[in-house]
């Protein structure tokens, strides 16, 4: 009983870690070369020297841009408690300049405990923002603007960006503008006058290297030795984990998984699944967990559909494929049946299925969405006459046939033949 509780506790701990981005990105931020330290240096030097600055964080989705930024801001708020205020805008919500200025004013009011009026006009809001920038400049307080989805701000007339960056050109204001975007050419999207005011600083968030990946896995999956979880269990767990991490097969699984998408977020989703497959009986992570997780994530639904088909349905699919190869633009159930009959004749297949059974198989395929009607108009026509098309490619069909439990060889022959 006690053992199970411990295991469950460990499982909960691991799962909560995987959902907490600030925990995950801690080890990646320790080296002085990392994006965390670069960003921290830039912002802290702007704060201490009271000068304006702007920077872009670029990288694919899920590579940890906002997570690292949050870490940096948290640390800076601890280091300089009264010198920083943070305003957050999102390109999805605030790309229109009215909304943007309203939101800036609202956040400034909330931060400095002023009353915000929803009736304020666009002019009032922009005047307020400029006045606040000046006041904060006099009080040596830096305002950090975080613009999420920066490329969406660059649509239209870019007034928000221009006003923010123009305000930073004057000596009286102290502001740092941090743009976060997944588009690499985000600064090419800016108008030339906005780009001229925006400094060229960019921080690229690249996928982690192999060593970083190894460190990350160790950091996330190792249980803490001196916490509420029992000491012996944690030590044993960590030892088994180390063995597994050094195993070549495990490395191969990770590499195969990360070959399609190398961002940290993608990896976290995989780890979450693998950890959830951990057996509560043994209480340790094993290679099998990761293999199961991999096969579950890399599912191909259409192939699984084909595995569930009957032989007749496979025949119908292969006939449709042949009709496509013969470059018949549209075909319906009747033409498929004709093709099937000709195949039976030429290859002397013994099985005979009645018309109604074939129609039933055809309808099954329609329901499973392996084939579909090409037009939506002929609702009144019966199923036999409406034109249909395949929803799976020939490659998928071939793979499905290969993995079918007892596929008749005739189907392979039919697929390979041109006519």
């Amino acid at each position: 009983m006690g053992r199970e509780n411990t295991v469950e506790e460990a499982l909960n701990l691991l799962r909560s870690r995987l959902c907490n981005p600030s925990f995950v990105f801690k080890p990646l931020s320790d080296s002085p070369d990392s994006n965390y330290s670069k960003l921290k240096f830039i912002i802290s030097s702007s704060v201490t020297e009271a000068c304006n600055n702007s920077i872009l964080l670029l990288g694919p989705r899920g590579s940890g841009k906002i997570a690292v930024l949050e870490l940096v801001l948290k640390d800076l708020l601890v280091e300089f408690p009264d010198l920083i205020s943070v305003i957050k805008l999102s390109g999805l919500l605030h790309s229109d300049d009215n909304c943007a200025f309203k939101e800036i004013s609202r956040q400034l009011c909330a931060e400095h405990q002023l009353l915000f009026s929803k009736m304020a006009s666009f002019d009032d809001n922009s005047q307020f923002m400029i006045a606040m920038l000046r006041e904060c400049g006099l009080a040596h307080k830096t305002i950090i603007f975080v613009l999420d989805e920066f490329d969406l701000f660059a649509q239209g007339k870019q007034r928000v960006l221009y006003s923010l960056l123009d305000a930073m050109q004057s000596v009286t204001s102290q502001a740092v503008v941090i743009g976060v975007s997944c588009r690499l050419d985000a600064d090419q999207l800016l108008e030339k006058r906005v780009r001229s005011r925006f400094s060229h600083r960019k921080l690229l968030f690249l996928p982690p290297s192999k060593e970083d990946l190894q460190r990350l896995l160790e950091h996330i999956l190792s249980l803490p030795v001196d916490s509420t979880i029992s000491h012996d269990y944690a030590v044993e767990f960590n030892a088994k984990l180390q063995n597994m991490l050094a195993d070549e097969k495990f490395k191969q699984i990770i590499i195969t998984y990360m070959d399609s998408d190398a961002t940290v977020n993608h990896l976290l989703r995989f780890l979450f699944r693998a950890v959830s497959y951990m057996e509560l009986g043994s209480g340790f992570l094993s290679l099998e967990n990761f293999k199961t997780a991999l096969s579950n994530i890399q599912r191909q639904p259409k192939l699984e559909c084909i595995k569930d088909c009957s032989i007749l349905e496979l025949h119908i699919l292969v006939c449709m494929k042949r009709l496509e190869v013969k470059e018949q633009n549209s075909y319906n159930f009747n033409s498929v049946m004709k093709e099937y009959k000709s195949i039976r004749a030429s290859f002397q297949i013994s099985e005979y299925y009645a018309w109604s059974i074939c129609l039933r198989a055809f309808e099954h395929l329609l329901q499973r969405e392996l084939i579909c009607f090409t037009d939506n108009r002929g609702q009144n026509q019966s199923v036999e006459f409406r034109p249909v098309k395949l929803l799976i490619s020939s490659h998928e069909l071939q793979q499905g046939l290969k993995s079918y439990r007892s596929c008749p060889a005739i189907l392979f022959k039919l697929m390979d033949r041109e006519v």
Partner: protein
Amino acid sequence: MPAIMAVKPDSARSNPDSTPQKRRLRSDTTAAPDSPISTPVKWKSPRTCTTSSPKTPISRVERDCSENITKSHKSPIKKLSDSLTPTKQKWNPLDSEQMKAVKEAMHVSTAPPNIVCREGEQKRVLEFCQACVEQEKAGSLYVCGCPGTGKSLSMEKVKQLLFHWANEAGHQQPNVLTINCTSLAKTSDIFSKILGESQPRKKVNGATSPLQHLQNLYSQKPQPSGMKMMLIIADELDYLITKDRAVLHDLFMLTTLPFSRCILIGIANAIDLADRFLPKLQSLNCKPMVVTFRAYSKDQILKILYERLMELPYTVFQPQALELCARKVAAASGDMRKALCVCRSAIEMVEAELRESSSNFSSSIVEKAFLEQQRATAPVFLEKQEIDVVRLDHMVVALSKTYKSPIVDTIQSLPQHQQILLCSAVKLFRGGKKDTNVGELNKFYMEICKSALIPPVGILELSSICRVLSDQGLLKLGQSREDKSKRVTLCVDEADITFALQGIRFFRNCLQ
């Protein structure tokens, strides 16, 4: 590729002291003040510049850089550095006060006390305003140029000079309204602002719009007490362009009314704004005068940088480093903000190097001290390498960070399947096709995977890879109900992809 702007010849280039009226071919205005008629100077194309080119050695003199150094044949840089060396001490980058002072001097928002390299343009604008104020006539002027060429800065200076002159010459000081057109909620608000400035105490009658009010005001004979002239500086004028171009037109028409009192200076980036959007003014023969602010040349940038550094009592930059920076920026865009940014970036390189060396130094000195203790010999004083100037290598790194695109780096760090997909897109589009759909791309992708004996990913995974690449701006995905028929276009140059992937033999062979 950023091309150097081919603009109308700036008259100040060859002869800074006169304003050759004859050469104003395009936009000339009779409302312009009668400036002294000068001898027409031979028109020199801006491209065939005999006095300076990007490859000019420093020793050549650049005439339009400064009026002071026209007589000497010594290069301005050499002369400045001569004047610098006797009084300058060494810069100590570890001193935070000094570092702060340097960074402030190099910041874009610090306005330098005297603005160099724009004297000619300022003079023309000032003379125009002076003539308007003297004759109490209205006029309009259009200032254009690339971003970062000192337009707004120069207009501020002209404003101060005008006040100064008006005081001395005994004229009434004009009212000034400086407005940035991006801050207007509606384009027609500019008229209410002008009205507010010219008649601050009168309440506006609700029946007439501000524009009509102004038009009435300027069409009637003014009272004997006379109204003051009003100087309107409208920055970022192209924000006033609406579909029917009414606001811009009305604004400039205000200066043509018989009793108008405004001097309008519009600032924008487009050279031909006046021609394109104000054609009707041509027929009335009152087109605004155009002053073009050309992009800075290498020597101008160098001069401005030295001007900023002159206030500091120590040398911060190696002269070669500054020259490299000026060359690069002048060749790229001639934008002064960029040059200042690059210089600040180079200073940060020095800071980073200091931090690194100090951490190495402190760790190595601890090691050494420990070893010394062990050996019990006299302690050796470690020579720390002095970094007291921003060197050429710092500048090189700063420039490469500014002008490098992140695309090559990103492509090199993409996971394998994404790189294969980009490769297959390149091969597909080589045949001359401009766009394709995901299904076609899938076929090519699977062929390449087969040739490399890599198991391909399924169509679902492939469409999510396409989406990830389109999020990053490498591909462009169209809209469609079905995944397979979404249109795909390549947004990155083929050469970039080939260059990025050349390190991997498989891709090299594939893309041949």
